């Protein structure tokens, strides 16, 4: 017994020795490089030394490999005194990381932003006033398609815009006996019913109402309102949810639900799921970002689909609003290199670079003089661009305070209506009350 134990013990000791040695070796390799990376958001700067800007974004992984870095290299060659370090972050955690970073003053110099966060970050003092910087640099604001402002000052500039038209599976439409892509609500309901009648697991429409990331309210619900030129706010920006246009929108969505044309799982469906189901041909039509065209084609090359304006109310003939999401850019308030950071912003918004980035990302440029190069991309982009030009970009959530919470409150109440637990009027009233305490 004791003999065995000594043998076991010395074996263990040897193992321990080996493991320790390995760890020390590994750590020696690792610690060397790791520990030196102790930057805290504001970078070193000698008197004449180069300035290093840190740029946190989620864009690089969404673009072709290395293409975003190339743009940065181009910027660096135009600005020999500035180096750009790209920091990547998982998209889902970006907002939370930015809030935390702002609180401990470790925000990177330049940050990628979503329009829905701007109001709150501006209030937190996380991002700096870009209007002032633009004035200092004597920047020509005319080229900017839009600026996101809070209290009259710009805090974010949309670099690339992704519009959300209607996607329709053409094969499925013709199989269901629908001749044309629906252009008003009645036609849409009809088409959706016919598609759902195809049976199997096919449905006409997908409605992602996940409450963790409630963008579905913006992209898939309010889009119906905006497509008919409606607004969810009054002239002075107060909630107007009990107005007839909003009511008819919610009733319409409810009618789609009652007609059982919506793909199952709607209450916790995420935007990514919606795209996957469309790609897998489980859903015939969806409202979705143009950025997905390439993705869909890659994952299902045989899928025959097209894009169209979002259907409006039957008698509507005016300009149709089209929802959009942007890759926006802002500058941290805590950075020591505001001027250099603005140079980077200028670069990304310059006609050439902006056009290039938009082409790579399959979005529309934030510089209204930039012409994206559609020659090499899918013909659908040209179609979409035409739709974009005919209508107007509509996203009333951008610039609102606590927009995620606003969307979530609407979402939760809408879910009650869709499951039959609350009437449309109650939903609108309750949400209106909740919004009024925020806006």
């Amino acid at each position, binding site marked *: 017994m004791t003999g065995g134990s000594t043998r076991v013990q010395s074996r263990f000791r040897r193992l321990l020795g080996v493991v320790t040695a390995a760890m020390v070796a590994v750590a020696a390799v690792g610690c060397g490089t790791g520990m030196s990376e102790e930057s805290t958001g504001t970078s070193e700067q000698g008197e004449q030394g180069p300035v290093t800007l840190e740029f946190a974004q989620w864009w690089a992984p969404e673009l072709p490999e290395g293409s975003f870095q190339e743009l940065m290299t181009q910027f660096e060659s135009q600005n020999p005194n500035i180096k750009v370090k790209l920091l990547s972050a998982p998209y889902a955690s970006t907002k939370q990381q930015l809030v935390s970073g702002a609180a401990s003053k470790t925000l990177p110099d330049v940050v990628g932003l979503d329009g829905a966060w701007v109001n*709150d970050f501006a209030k937190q003092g996380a991002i700096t006033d870009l209007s002032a910087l633009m004035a200092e640099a004597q920047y020509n604001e005319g080229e900017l398609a839009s600026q996101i402002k809070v209290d009259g000052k710009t805090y974010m500039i949309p670099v690339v815009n992704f519009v959300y038209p209607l996607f329709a599976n053409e094969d499925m439409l013709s199989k269901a006996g629908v001749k044309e892509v629906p252009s008003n609500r009645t036609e849409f309901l009809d088409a959706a019913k016919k598609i759902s009648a195809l049976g199997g697991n096919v449905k006409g429409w997908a409605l992602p109402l996940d409450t963790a990331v409630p963008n579905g309210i913006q992209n898939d619900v309010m889009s119906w309102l905006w497509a008919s030129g409606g607004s969810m706010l009054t002239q002075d920006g107060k909630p107007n949810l009990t107005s007839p246009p909003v009511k008819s929108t919610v009733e319409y969505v409810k009618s789609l639900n009652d007609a059982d044309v919506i793909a199952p799982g709607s*209450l*916790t469906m995420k935007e990514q799921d919606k795209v996957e189901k469309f790609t897998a041909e489980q859903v015939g039509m969806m409202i979705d970002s143009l950025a997905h065209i390439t993705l869909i084609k890659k994952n299902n090359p045989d899928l025959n689909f097209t894009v169209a304006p979002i259907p409006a109310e039957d008698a509507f003939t005016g300009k149709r609003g089209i929802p959009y999401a942007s890759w926006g850019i802002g500058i941290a308030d805590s950075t020591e290199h505001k001027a250099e950071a603005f140079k980077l912003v200028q670069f990304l918004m310059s006609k050439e670079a902006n056009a290039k980035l938009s082409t790579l990302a399959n979005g529309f440029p934030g510089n209204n003089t930039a012409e994206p190069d559609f020659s090499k991309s899918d013909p659908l982009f040209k179609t979409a661009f035409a739709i974009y030009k005919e209508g107007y970009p509509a996203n009333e959530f951008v610039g609102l305070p606590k927009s995620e919470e606003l969307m979530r409150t609407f979402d939760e109440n809408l879910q009650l209506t869709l499951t039959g637990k609350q009437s449309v009027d109650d939903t609108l009233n309750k949400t209106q009350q909740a919004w009024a305490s925020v806006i």
Partner: protein
Amino acid sequence: MEPAHLDRTVLPEAATLEAEPSTPPAQDRKRPFSVRGLAPYGYILPTVLLIFVLMVIPIAMVVSYSFQDNVIVQRNPVFTGLANYAEVLTDPVFLTAIKNTFIFITLSTIAHLVLGLAFAMMLNTGLLSGLTKAIFRVVYILPWLFTIAVVAVIWRLMLDPFGVVNYILTTIGVLQTEVNWLADPTTALWALTFINIWSGYPFFMISLLAGLQGISSDLYEAAAVDGANAVQRFFNVTIPQLKPVLISMAVLDLIWTSQQFALIWMTTGGGPLNVTEMLSTYTYKQAFSSYEFATASASAVIVLLLTMILAFFYVRQLRER
């Protein structure tokens, strides 16, 4: 020098920092082993240093936030006393979250215990060869190996209305139509609990397996001599021997499960209709959607207090043994 050696795997007899070691009554005198009174402090110094330095300040800040308003996201915090607590405790969503969390952690922990014990006992059987058991052990430990984001994502995929779980269940006839496991308010909480049970039972299984090794076979033989059958042996020998371990792990599991956030957020986000809203998701939404760090802190302090009550009862019942 040849140290004495116990020829068995140790059984965590009483998983607490309180219990006296199992010495016979004759030597039951509390005589400190070390001569210098400072030695014990030296042994616990690294721990105390690490935990207190790193945690005391942040926890104190959280508590202080809970008594203020306008923290973090505004530039001028204002002291508001217990207002945040009142707001949280009267929020119906918070109360729903408490109810759901209670159901979630209770069911999860019980299932973890039962499954962990069942698997441990099956893996401990003398009826199978060592190799067979080793293979099964590896399979059973698999849920433990993956980061929670991946667990959430893969289960979402499998529980999709047209996913593989529904496919199999409808094909073999258990279900008539596809079930919206995670999107249907009536099934979401149970589906979520099931996923959590899947991802957490290996912890119990491994600890209980180690524990089972330490139960002396003499006890079983003695029981068999007294005429006890397998079931009676289980309840009169196995369970009592394992009881301290079971209780400690249950308490730990209740605490850890109540902190579970990523799994819920990435599968259901607290919905649909708040049926899977837990204290963790509630706190997160307060903090990062409403930007109300003060109420989020208040919610956190409430969770801390509730847990300390649990810990208090746990420590008390141990001392009485």
